[in-house]
């Protein structure tokens, strides 16, 4: 178990550093195995350095930087251990326009191997969807769904 864990950890750590630099358009980040004070199994520390900033603790990252760092970790794990699908509920809510563009490019890469389903209010993310479902709530509290095939006209 320990050997497999370390092997997976090393592969995810490599993918995480790459995904972070791609998503932030620069900077570096690392995953570090740290010994547990009480002698139990090692823990995983995350160190992130957005472009132009010093190496700092996670506590100092902004709302959008945290969301983007977490997205990098998610993409890294899914790359090492592909899953038949991933369902993301408004993970892009805190991102500014420039970060949404980088995020959606990375999402398009993910969608090559994994069924990607994303709940979003973000126009930039909707534009790269291959298919679209619109959900609405009727007067009687029942949700209904409309499939809005992306005939290209929707992105307007």
């Amino acid at each position, binding site marked *: 178990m320990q050997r497999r864990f370390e092997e997976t950890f090393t592969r*995810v750590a490599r993918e995480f550093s790459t995904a972070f630099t791609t998503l932030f358009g620069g900077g570096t980040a690392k995953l570090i195995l740290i010994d547990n004070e009480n002698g139990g199994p090692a823990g995983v520390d995350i160190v992130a350095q957005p472009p132009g900033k010093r190496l700092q603790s996670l506590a100092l990252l902004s709302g959008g930087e945290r969301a983007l760092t*977490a997205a990098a970790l998610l993409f890294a794990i899914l790359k090492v251990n592909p899953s*038949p699908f991933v369902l993301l509920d408004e993970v892009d809510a805190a991102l500014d326009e420039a970060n949404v563009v980088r995020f959606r490019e990375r999402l398009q890469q993910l969608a090559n191997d994994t069924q990607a389903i994303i709940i979003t209010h973000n126009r930039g993310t909707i534009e790269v969807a291959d298919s679209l*479902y619109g959900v609405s709530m009727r*007067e009687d509290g*029942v*949700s209904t769904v409309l499939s809005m095939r992306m005939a290209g006209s929707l992105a307007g």
Partner: protein
Amino acid sequence: PRLTKLELHGFKSFANRTTFLFEPGITAIIGPNGSGKSNISDGVRWVLGEQSHSLLRSKKTEDVIFAGGNGKAPGGFAEVTVTFDNSTGWLPIEFSEVTVTRRSLRSGENQFLINGRKVRLKDIHHLTASLGQSYTVVGQGLVDAALSQRAEERRGLFEHAA
């Protein structure tokens, strides 16, 4: 494998049978506040064996059953089915198409089915163990949950992936 279909019937605000067909690529789900988008992701977590009330945003088991609205009577059951294309044999089961169903009755009875055959919750967990729930469904507002955990708690993410 790929997730190809999701059906919700009586689950939370989806009183009527509602079907999602997923094409390869990115599927976006949009809609106003409170329209039922996050209920869809709750449904996917639920059918794959999620038992935690806080992750399902419920207080008691029957909170997942349609509770009625203006003029519409409450439902008697909630049912969700997911269909995977397993032609590559990735899921540890010999079917090229795998359906997983969860049904909950107002009486409190919970049923799980794989390809129409009744199974136990344990069997669902065995089937989905390779999915690693924590990074397959990321709930609203929970994207940075891994960053708030302590270092030793994050190990779980990698053990799942191992």
